[in-house]
């Protein structure tokens, strides 16, 4: 009865059924999925600049400075401690490096390993960075240390968020 390429009654009902079913599934799931993936689509929050130390205290030798920042984590607000390696480079410019190793996130230390003086050394997997924060080729890290956003105001150093180079 049905000729070739002709939609049978059953096929037609099947298509309509899948269409209606798809509409219901989409109507139901669309808000929920958007709700679930919201963290990915949320814009990053700006972090306030906080005073860390007097500019006059900054030396050529990197110093580890701890400072507190207000962190908003969803509905939970807290104060967390962050730290930075602060020093003045050859051109007398202030550098503030994040101590978080770019390999797997351990904390790097300044010339803590006797074999590599004047380098940042990561104790976890032996990652190394030169004084300007650039990773030494052949060691685990694949990128230089993050640099803090900073500004100097009234003789004080203010740090913001660490940013990758």
């Amino acid at each position, binding site marked *: 009865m049905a000729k070739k390429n002709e939609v049978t*009654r*059953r096929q037609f*009902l*099947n298509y*309509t*059924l899948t269409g*209606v*079913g798809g*509409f*219901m599934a989409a*109507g*139901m799931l669309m*808000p929920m999925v958007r709700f679930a993936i919201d963290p990915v689509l949320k814009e990053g929050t700006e972090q306030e600049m906080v005073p860390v130390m007097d500019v006059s205290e900054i030396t050529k030798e990197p110093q580890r400075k701890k400072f507190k920042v207000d962190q908003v984590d969803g509905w939970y607000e807290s104060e967390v401690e962050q730290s930075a390696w602060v020093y003045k480079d050859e051109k007398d410019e202030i550098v503030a490096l994040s101590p978080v190793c770019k390999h797997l996130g351990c904390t790097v230390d300044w010339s803590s390993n006797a074999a590599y003086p004047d380098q940042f050394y990561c104790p976890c997997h032996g990652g190394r960075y030169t004084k300007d924060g650039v990773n030494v080729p052949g060691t685990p890290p694949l990128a230089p240390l993050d640099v803090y956003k900073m500004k100097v105001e009234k003789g004080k150093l203010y740090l913001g968020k660490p940013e990758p180079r």
Partner: protein
Amino acid sequence: MHRGKGMKFVGDSRVPAQKKPNIPKDYSEYPGKTEAFWPNFLLKEWMVGAVFLIGYLLLTIAHPSPLERVADPTDATYTPLPDWYFLFLYQLLKYKYAAGDYTLIGTMIIPGIAFGSLLLAPWLDPGPERRPSKRPIAVGMMLLAVISTIFLTWESVVTHDWEKQAKQGEIVEANVDKDAEGYQIYSGQSCIGCHGDSLQGATGPSLLETEKSAEEIMGIAKNGIPPAMPANAFEGSDEELQKLAQFIVETAEANK
């Protein structure tokens, strides 16, 4: 289909080697007044579902679900209200023979009988007759139950003060400096009990909307406002009273 002896299986499993062809039953196999579940019946069911879903989503957009302020177990002035489908029970417990000495009747016996007979309906109404007109007792009881449930819910809705209900649960986003010296005095004295922890008011009125001057507030704190606010509610030094009044005026100013 081949059954029993001589049947072939896939490997050493119990899955028959002979496949049932994946062909739907012919429509001629639905004789008389029947139809296939998929796709005929389900299509109509899902169309109803789709229309319902649209209405449902519109409802959620038009009426955001309510959220009252965070639970405060110390707030003794709050009048609780259950969700609407428990209102009939709530209303029932207001009546004389379902409360007080008779509480058990209201909380256990009446609901117990109602829900118990609902559960056991097939045995309470065992006759073979299905038409409502042929089983007047069962249908009558059910109608009675439905009508009284609707009546009780209705009664509780119309006798309830919805404005007060909405107000007492409102989220107050008051800008109150809780570290201020004035607030320490406010919470140390009895003020906080009636005027709330953010001056938002509870049994007493909200202080956030006050237009009174510091002097007037000092007077009220000492002499009260009959009958609700007692005289001599404030028990502290004059200096503290001054600070308290100043704090209330400043807070009211900040929340304008």
